[in-house]
């Protein structure tokens, strides 16, 4: 442990090479040995504000319980048998009768924050940026001098505003009303939710009926800032919900789109649809393994290979299923349901036998990790953004295939009037096979997307099968547009319900809603009209 401290101290020494080396004023150190908790916290802040190596040594000693006090109030850093006096920088054998300085949780928190604050002086820009972000989340009054000092030295245009906000947050507790007012005004552009209770405390009356903030102008400024902050936070929440709702909708859409073809157009209840998603996800996993092994330098491109691979794998499985099992059961939906459930059990167990029952790890390629920050604090992750666009591309592709290609023409013909299509020379069996393969392949594409968002395991498909059927039934069987609207609609409703009811109750509410909705419109949002209904 001690060795580790030495190492970090040495590392910091290098980082802080620019800082002047100076011993610490004994007057600053003395309160540390005392009993007054507020004085000790203030002392920690002042020591940290020195921002030099000795300060760091004292703070880390305090944190690691190696700081001792002599009976006459001198503070020593004890390392084994030797003791370093930070006031002089001299090392001597540790004297008799010294006491360990106890650190309570409050003081420890301040010490840790101050040590993080010292990183503001690092020469590494990224480290300074991280430290500034950390401090902006919550800065103590004791850290104000440190932040002000860092602000004076800081040149970076990205770090400066962060530090200004951190300084303002710390200055909220300043005894000077003018500084407090300035701090409150400086925070008007912040979007930090943890400031709300602080500002609210300044604006509202306390339990005894008096204001905790004595200065009226500061109160008014705080009220204005609070209003702006709350409005910005509400906006952030709405935008966040919208985004996550669209994201969930895109996932539902990708999961349900294949089903919209196999169930919606062909009328096949495929309970193994979830397992086709799973196969797509595992195909992605296998592609990733291959790239890791054979082309590690092009690992980021594995998704481009995974997409066709997953499509083909799922489509192939789908075609085999259709030819061997499902085609014997056309016109007997309940039997199809049972047989495909059996298929799903076999597929799940097969994956367990091959890849093991544990979840496998599929990593985002580097260009999909991270995200963009909007409105100050809301992070929209790249993988979700990419998947939203991907889902739209897939929908467009399906629409084109169904409406602009020869296969699509045949599919629609067979759906509308199988016998007539047969008479006109369409090979209906072959069209069935191709359509089912298409639907299954699209499920495979959905699996690629799911692998980028969540766990990939043998049970992956089970989590989506009920949802997928709900989307297709709600959207109206055989209606591509209905499926799209139902997916995004359900995604949005789900995300806007979640804050009120929790994730599980939101899901239950949606299932209840769908059950009630189907009472009113048994044919879904977009009902087919005319003869094809029955």
């Amino acid at each position: 442990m001690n060795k580790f401290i030495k190492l970090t101290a040495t590392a910091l020494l290098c980082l802080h090479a620019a800082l002047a080396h100076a011993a610490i004023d004994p007057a600053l150190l003395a309160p540390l040995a005392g009993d007054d908790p507020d004085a000790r916290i203030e002392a920690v802040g002042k020591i940290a504000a020195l921002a030099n190596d000795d300060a760091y040594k004292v703070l880390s000693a305090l944190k690691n319980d190696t700081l001792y006090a002599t009976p006459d109030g001198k503070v020593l850093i004890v390392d084994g048998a030797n003791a370093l006096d930070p006031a002089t920088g001299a090392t001597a054998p540790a004297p008799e009768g010294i006491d360990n300085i106890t650190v309570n949780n409050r003081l420890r928190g301040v010490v840790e924050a101050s040590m993080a604050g010292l990183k503001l002086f690092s020469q590494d820009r990224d480290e300074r940026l991280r430290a500034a972000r950390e401090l902006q989340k919550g800065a103590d009054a004791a850290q104000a001098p440190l932040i002000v000092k860092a602000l004076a030295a800081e040149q970076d245009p990205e770090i400066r505003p962060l530090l200004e906000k951190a300084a303002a947050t710390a200055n909220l507790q300043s005894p000077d009303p003018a500084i407090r007012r300035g701090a409150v005004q400086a925070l008007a552009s912040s979007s930090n939710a943890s400031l709300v209770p602080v500002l609210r405390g300044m604006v509202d009356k306390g339990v005894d009926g008096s204001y905790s903030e004595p200065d009226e102008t500061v109160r008014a400024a705080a009220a204005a800032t609070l209003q702006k902050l709350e409005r910005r936070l509400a906006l952030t929440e709405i935008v966040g919900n919208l985004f996550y709702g669209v994201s969930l909708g895109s996932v539902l859409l990708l999961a349900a789109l294949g089903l919209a073809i196999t169930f919606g157009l062909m009328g096949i209840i495929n309970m193994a649809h979830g397992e086709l998603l799973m196969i797509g996800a595992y195909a992605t996993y296998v592609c990733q393994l291959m790239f890791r092994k054979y082309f590690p330098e092009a690992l980021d491109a594995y998704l481009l290979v995974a997409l066709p691979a997953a499509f083909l794998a799922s489509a192939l499985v789908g075609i085999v299923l259709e030819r061997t099992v499902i085609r014997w059961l056309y016109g007997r939906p309940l039997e199809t349901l049972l047989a495909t459930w059996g298929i799903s059990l076999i597929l799940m167990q097969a994956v367990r036998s091959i890849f093991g029952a544990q979840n496998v790890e599929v990593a985002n390629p580097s260009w999909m990790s991270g995200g963009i920050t909007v409105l100050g604090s809301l992070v929209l992750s790249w993988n979700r953004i990419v998947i939203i666009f991907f889902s739209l591309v897939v929908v467009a592709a399906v629409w084109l295939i169904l409406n602009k290609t020869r296969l699509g023409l045949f599919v629609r013909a067979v759906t509308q009037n199988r016998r007539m299509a047969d008479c006109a020379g369409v090979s209906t069996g072959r069209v069935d096979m191709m359509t089912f393969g298409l639907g299954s392949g699209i499920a495979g594409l959905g699996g690629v997307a799911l692998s980028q968002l969540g766990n990939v395991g043998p049970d992956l498909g089970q989590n989506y099968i009920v949802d997928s059927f709900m989307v297709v039934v709600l959207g109206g069987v055989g209606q591509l547009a209905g499926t799209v609207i139902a997916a995004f609609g359900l995604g949005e409703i789900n995300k806007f319900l979640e804050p009120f009811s929790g994730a599980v109750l939101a899901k239950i509410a949606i299932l209840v809603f769908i059950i009630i909705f189907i009472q009113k419109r048994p044919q879904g949002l977009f009902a087919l009209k005319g003869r094809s209904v029955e």
Partner: protein
Amino acid sequence: MKTTLFTRPAWAGIIVCAALLALLPVLNLSFPASHPLHVSSYMVALVGKFMCYAMAALALDLVWGYTGILSLGHGVFFALGGYAHGMYLMRAIGREGVYQSDLPDFMVFLDWKTYPWFWSMTDNFWYSMLLVVAVPGVLAFVFGYFAFRSRIKGVYFSIITQAMTFAFMLLFFRNNTGFGGNNGFTDFKRIVGHTITAPSTKAALYLITLAMLLGALLLCRWIVRSKLGRVLQAVRDSESRLMFIGYNPLWFKLFVWTLSAVLCGIAGALYVPQVGIINPSEMSPANSIEMVIWAAVGGRGTLLGPIIGAFSVNGLKSWFTGAFPDLWLYALGLMFILVTLFMPQGILGLAAKLRRQKEAA
């Protein structure tokens, strides 16, 4: 015209099987473990469990085999019956839980001070028996009323029932729902004053289950042979024609659907004290759909078939999960596929077909 439904040999088979089943706990109690006629307690518990499953399969046959309504949500009725009885069993533990509180352990763990309103009076055995019937019954009635009124049928109905059981499973998995979260109810101590683990209590529960199963079988037989039963089969075969004749299928369907749910709830209530645990995984969609395969394997629309199916599928499952645990899901999956493709009438249908062929030859 009345169909015979059970032929003379079938009656004989029922009586012989019932007598043999009744003999099992007697053999378990009256012979020492070393005696060749001794039947192990494990075996008695296993068969007791199968009889509960058989009752659920019978209930499913009433709606699927005779009325053509495929439910993928009967697990929820089974589990609700089990939970309703489990509430009584939890309160019968008294202060012998880990925390020695009047409340069940999971409530102490949640820091609840009193029972929620829906637990009131559940310390009364007969009230809990009423709940066993009422809770699945009312749920089925309300759900069925809305579904049948808007004429949801076929696969749509099946999918909605699956969504229902899925929703209930999620609900019961929450700790705050007040039913023990994912651990459910377990560690029961006694039932109406008898220690629940005592061999005599187990034997009594077993015999009650057997009697209930036989009673349910006779009740179902009476229903499907009555005029009501004929209407139900007409619903299955051609609902539109039945409506043209002037019947309103709603109340017929609703009656049989609710009755089936109640039977299933009773089966669940008998299941819980014998198995000693009830948790939300009983409500998983997979469990409900497994019930369907029991009925399908035995032969739907025969009443006896589902019982045979429940025994044979579960017997096979016990054997497989002991001998080849990895292969059971393959076997179950294959069973689903082969039965639907090659023997849609199940074991009994296959037997009848073979008999006809023999007679023709």
